[in-house]
């Protein structure tokens, strides 16, 4: 006997409708029914974080959520971070720092980091460590992963820097227009 239920959820910005069994986890539904195999299954009991996805913007272990529970909710997986075939700044940072060794933990690491940065755009190194405490890397490549998140976050003065840049741009435009009017 199986019990099946309709599931309508916004997955990576697209409304998807499927039928799921009550015994399916969100991770199973993503990987097997929706073909989103970026989220990985490793421990399947909430220890390792390889299956981390965002539900309603919050990082959760997809292996510890029943698929039927997310009916009506918004899910973001690793596949949802790119825009128009371009990786996100965070994903680029993982490549740039060489944070990816075997790669198995990386989708979960990136999603946990994304949740951290959404809440705290400029975390300190210890905040990054805390933010990723639910994710294990079997290669032990933690330092470069932390470096990647810090690189993506950029220096804490980003707002000021942006302001400075705007002032410089304004001055350039002013100079140029002055030149035109002279």
């Amino acid at each position, binding site marked *: *006997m*199986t*019990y099946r*239920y309709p599931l309508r959820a916004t997955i990576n910005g697209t409304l998807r409708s499927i039928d799921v*069994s*009550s*015994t399916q*986890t969100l991770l199973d539904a993503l990987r097997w029914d929706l073909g989103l195999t970026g989220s990985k299954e490793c421990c*399947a*009991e*909430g*220890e390792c*974080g390889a299956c*981390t996805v965002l539900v309603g913007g*919050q*990082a*959760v*272990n997809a*292996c*510890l*959520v*029943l698929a*039927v*529970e997310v*009916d009506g909710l918004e899910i973001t997986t690793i596949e949802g971070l790119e825009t128009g075939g371009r990786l996100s700044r965070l994903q680029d940072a993982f490549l740039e720092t060489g944070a990816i060794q075997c790669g198995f933990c990386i989708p979960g690491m990136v999603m*946990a980091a994304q*949740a951290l940065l959404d809440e705290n755009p400029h975390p300190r190194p210890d905040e990054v460590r*805390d*933010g990723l*405490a*639910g*994710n294990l890397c079997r290669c032990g490549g933690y330092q470069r992963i932390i470096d990647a998140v810090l690189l993506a976050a950029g220096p804490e003065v980003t707002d000021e820097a942006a302001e400075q840049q705007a002032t410089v741009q304004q001055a350039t435009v002013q100079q140029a227009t002055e030149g035109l009017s002279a």
Partner: protein
Amino acid sequence: MKAFAYARPRSLDETYDLLDEAGPGDVRMIVGGTDLIVGLQGERLTPRLVIDLKHMHDLPAGITHTPERVSVSAVTSLSEVIADERIGALFPGLVEAAQTVGSIQIRNRASLAGNVCNASPAADTAPALLAYDAVVVIASRAGARRVHVGDFILGPRRTALAPDEIVIALELPKPGGPSGAKFARLTRRRGVDLATLSLCCTVGPRRTRFAFGALAPRPFVVDDDSGVLADPAGNELTRERILHEITDQARPISDLRARADYRQAMVLVLSRRALRSALILRDTASTAPTEGGA
């Protein structure tokens, strides 16, 4: 996982209907599911019906404050409890304990009520809830009843909940007067791990209380009303004797996390440290300006 039906009631009444229909068979409630789903996966739990409590209009998630107490709805996540600044100010030991549960991913799903209902001897929040005299609010069609958390947890994975009842909230009476609290926990590694032992120490003007986890079939409390522990200048030998008497009440088992004699030795060490921290916190809090109207 063995097959089960899933229900998403929209009200408490609908939930009671479901419980009536299901009869005394194996029904499980889901809020965060972080313990339940592990049990389902290993088929240690094989319910015929799983009821999702997160969609009832008359049981919303949230934390309500009244002058006497704080009420945490049963569908409130641990992350919400940790983020509530007033809970942090009133019950710092509870927030410390909640922060040690699993990982961020777990705490975003897991509920405080679920941690109690799961009734693990090693439940991280149980010692803190015991230390703060938390009350479990239980509802059924017959009405609501309130049970002290120490009477609610009966033993490993056993609670005082009847088949026609659900837990709707946890209530914490607001502490009067200056108090200090410290949660302490021993684990094999930092991060996601179950407690080898845990404790919460609270110190008021005279009473010192220890609540222990993973040291007996269920969490338990020991009070010292002599005033010796609560006095930072108290006689050191007397203090040690009382600490030994208190921690000797532990009845630990040997398991994969530690041997019983190691737990017994460590509970004394952690209790001593937690007491010292709680005393410092009490004495700095009582000299700090108090928050008006809290």
